[in-house]
């Protein structure tokens, strides 16, 4: 079982075609980590907190 596919799996250093940009993004967990933290931090947390901070104080 082990040997049948081994030969035709290309090593990553012998790839001929350039890797598409989208795949490069998907293959980079740390870039994804950055996106996954930055997007909600800005759109949910910071935006939300700014709205609360800017509420006028009742007199």
């Amino acid at each position, binding site marked *: 079982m082990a040997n049948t*596919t081994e030969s035709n799996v290309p090593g990553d250093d012998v790839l001929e075609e350039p890797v598409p940009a989208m795949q490069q993004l998907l293959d980079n967990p740390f870039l*994804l980590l950055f996106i996954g933290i930055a997007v909600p931090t800005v759109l949910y947390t910071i935006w939300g907190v700014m709205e609360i901070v800017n509420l006028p104080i009742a007199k």
Partner: protein
Amino acid sequence: MAVNRNFRTCPTTGLVFHEPAEKLMRWNAVVAVVALLIGGVLAIGVLLTRWQAVHLLQADLFYQFLTAHGLNMLVFWIIFFEMAILYFASSTLLRCRLATPGMAWVGFWLMVVGALLNNYAVLRGDSSVMFTSYAPMGAHPTFYAGLILFAVGALIACFVFFGTLVIAKAERTYHGSVPLVTFGAITAAIIAVFTIATGAIILIPTLLWSLGLIEHIDSLMYRTIWWGFGHSSQQINVAAHVSVWYAGAAVVFGAKPMSEKVSRTAFLLYIFFLQLASAHHLLADPGLTSNWKIFNTSYAMYLAVLASMVHGLTVPGSIEVAQRQKGFNNGLFEWLRKAPWGNAPFVAVFISIVGFGFLGGISGVMMGTEQLNLIIHNTLYVPGHFHATVVIGTTLAFMGLTYFLIPVLFRRKVAFGNMATWQAYIFGISMSGFSVFMMGAGTLGAPRRHWDISFAGNPFGYEFPATAWLMIALMGIFGVGALVGGAMYLAITVYSVFLGEKIQTPDFATVSAKRGMAPAPQPVAVGATGHGAGVGAWGMVAPGTFVLALVFLTSFVLYYFVNWKYLSTVWPLR
């Protein structure tokens, strides 16, 4: 320090286990099941109190039970189990040694101590603040300290996971891109990092406040940041159980994803948008603008919902294709009729997909709409919805995974014959009924987290319609069924792991890999080769799934509009 490079290849599945990673998976899974046991025992009290005909517990005990039920189930059971999944998806699926097992153990023990401390706080009786612990309602400092320790431990585990990805890449234990299931786990881990960081931002000041070191916690600020944690943690679950669906389809059917590209892009949509939906918990809160609410819940959330629908379509679709290739190619649904309805992991995953989509998904989109949210806000509809997502969706998927992992990880047979299959049916069907009737009672206005909706002995009461009472009684009956199903799971799992029949492996050996090299790559035992050739009907490879998707969309649209209609009667514009 010497690096442990001992690996074991599972003789039945061909999966490769790194010795320290395997031990961590086992321990995390065992502690998870203990948390489920505790949460399940507490569920008896909670359920039998909400079932007004029984009304078991006194008020203070009810809220104490409810707090501990929420925490042990939603936080401890699910997250311990997810840690095991992260180690599996990185170390095992990439055939790579786990990064810094020592740190992983530090994380594990922090989580254990945190969970114990938090349970201690609730047990004291002065911290019945529900798992949301909304300030200014205060709990004992150990309540927050426990959660913080738990979160730090989980964060460490996430970084061990990312570290393992780095090692796998450096040591070339895989070629090209990581497997889809690992990619799903990456999504879960990314959401987890945001979740835990947000939790720390809010829980650390709250801890200081409970110690008297900070004067005041603004309640709206607390709620906004807390839900960045509370809601996002549910999205870790979604990403994790969707990965389990893909794994289930691969294991049971040898199914391959219909399109890696589409599935991965759907996970990417999760990374971008899923966490924003946290705002749906604040739709009835004053102070935040509709711009913020609607952007975060509608525009952004629908993209995440779209991703869930993609997963809900491609998993059954890949199963359909695999089944058709096996020869079940007649008509629209032969592949489904001839599915292994006696196979416990399959049944669990199948009910998980259907229940999550039809009950959890549709209700979630409805209540995530700012206007419609008013109909059901803070009613039993809400726990009805999330018992469909987090119990039918996540918990049941994890139960199915357990039946697959007991032989693989613990080398024991799943005990009691086909009781596991019955368990999946009983738990899945009862939980579905429970959720539906809970949502029904909620639609009629019955509140959540309410000890006594009869208001007996109170100067101001409210008469709920008789149908609401009926719904609650039905919820009680189906809830008991779910408790039976849960108990069966615990009995099967605990018995199998500790007393089950050992699986003998005569030529078993733990292999030590040389430095810088993982075991020789083998094709993962699961996964069919090539697909799409000559199967299907109507010019589609998976027409049955297409029809099911249309049924889903029709129910979705109908339900959505029925609720708009209902809104207009609840809140008439004259």
